[in-house]
């Protein structure tokens, strides 16, 4: 939940080709981009925004070797210490027979772990809500939110975005963190918005 209320200048673009130079210029001018919301993954945008590489795959690797270790230690403990069985005259420590299960647990741990980590990093969970800067960010607009500090002159930022080619510009005061809520109770449908 912790995030606090902040002021944002929000500019919406309808063209990728305008968005990229705008992101570059906004960063060069020293404004802080909170985030850019796009309807689909835009190649190279993360790079243009200067976001560091995700460590999700490192986490995935760690989950995977945890899975490998879990499988191998558990099966070997069961079949050599806890309940040794004679299966087709094979040695109790029958490594080849365990490889499929080891592989499955490796994949399972890394897949489930990475999904959960991804959800955690993106604040995605049932009933977890975040402020939406523009409803059309999921449809056809690229929405750039610039975070304002006490010293930022928001008129200046709005003019800057105007020159950078934004189609719609407004100022929003919004919660930056997440909160628990229900969409059916709180959501105002887009068709009920004044501009529809």
């Amino acid at each position, binding site marked *: 939940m912790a995030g606090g209320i902040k002021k944002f200048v929000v500019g919406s673009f309808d063209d990728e080709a305008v968005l990229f130079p705008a992101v570059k210029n906004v960063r060069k001018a020293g404004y802080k981009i909170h985030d850019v919301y796009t309807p689909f993954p835009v*190649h*190279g945008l993360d790079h243009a925004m200067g976001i560091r590489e995700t460590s999700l*795959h490192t986490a995935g*690797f760690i989950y995977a070797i945890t899975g490998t270790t879990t499988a191998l230690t558990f099966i070997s403990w069961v079949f050599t210490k806890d309940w040794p069985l004679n299966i*087709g*005259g*094979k040695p109790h420590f029958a490594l*080849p*027979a365990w*490889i*499929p299960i080891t592989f499955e647990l490796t994949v399972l741990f890394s897949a489930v772990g990475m999904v959960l980590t991804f959800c955690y990093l993106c604040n995605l969970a049932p009933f977890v809500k975040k402020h939406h800067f523009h409803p059309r960010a999921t449809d056809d607009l690229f929405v750039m939110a610039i975070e304002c500090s006490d010293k930022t002159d928001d008129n200046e930022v709005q003019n800057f975005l105007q020159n950078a080619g934004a189609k719609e510009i407004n100022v929003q005061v919004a919660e930056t963190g997440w909160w628990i809520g229900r969409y059916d109770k709180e959501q105002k449908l887009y068709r009920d918005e004044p501009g529809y």
Partner: protein
Amino acid sequence: MNNHQFVLPGSYKKWTLILLIVGLLTIVYGFFAFDATAHGGHGQNVAATRFWAVLLQNSVYWLLLVNASMFFICVTTMAMGGWQVALRRVPEAISSVVPILGLITFIILLCIVLGHRTDIYHWLDAEAVAHDKILKAKSAFLSPGFYITWSAISIVLWSLLGRKMRKLSLDTDKNGTMDYETGKAWIWKNTVWASLYTVFFGLTVASTIPWIWLMSIDPHWYSTMYSWYVFASTFVASMSLIAIYIIYLRSKGQLEYVTDEHLHDIGKFMFAFSVFWTYLWFSQYMLIWYSNQPEETRYFVDRIGTAEKSGPFHGIFFLNLALNFLGPLLILMKKATKKSWTVVTLTAVMIIFGHWIDVFQMVMPGTLHEHAELGFFEFGSAAFFIGVIMWGVGRYITKNSLVPKNHPFMKESMIHHT
């Protein structure tokens, strides 16, 4: 002449020549020193067996390796892939070696079969087959007639279909920019020929050819995984050779549209097919280990040995797994390593060597048993085949433009980004 024309540097020519001469001298020396014409049944004249077994291993491995690069072109063409177009001339150049290596391989196979070398193929021994229920049942398939005919058809069709694919690609250089309709017709024609090649590839490399060329060394034994396993082996080695040539040409300032993004994708192929190879290798091993049938386990007893006594190929067997699974898995896992020229080059060399070792341990245990060696003759013969590949690739990349600039998907390839 155009500005994409590549002139071979002197060092490339020098090394090609050195490898060819060293290889040729080794083979000629081996022919006389090992008394290659001597009869080799039942463990006599081990040296002669070594001569033919090494030539069989090298010719089959390097031929299937260069042939797999045409398979890469055909499957990416059929999948309507655009990313590989900028680097397409590299696998084309590698596949242009198929006719010459095919001829060399065919001559070696003919010498083995017509020379009645029962030390290589036990099923050539007509008397033994007559008293052997299993071999008798397979004799329609494992016979000189079928062997020679099918080998000839395979090599000729790989060469012809591959040549057609290369010709379609080279024609675009002469014919100028294509409009929408011509481009569409050209892509369709390309797809049809690519699918013909792929179907024939499935009938040969992915099934019959590894059976008759390699698996029939142990004629009583069979594995349904075998051909896939050989295919995976040679395909991943082929991707590695493509990576090496891309990096080499990039370092010489060629292939200006091939970026690290393309190299990243080739690296993914090397990584993925190393894992695929391991999957097949392990599936073959585990089923035989589990069911524990004497006629099936024989193959692995000849290699790793038994719990009491380790076999002569114990070390090679596990080296194979380290070079072709653990190495690529751990090295190529990260994105940064797949984009690094140094790391990809070293890993590619390791993979090509690793799969050479893989084919070594397919051929040697059934022919030379405990007499197999890994000495000057093995490496010298490999040098000859590498020399032939370098010569053929060098010829293709100097004769033709390295950029298929009129290919309809060229722009898609240039802006490729992952």
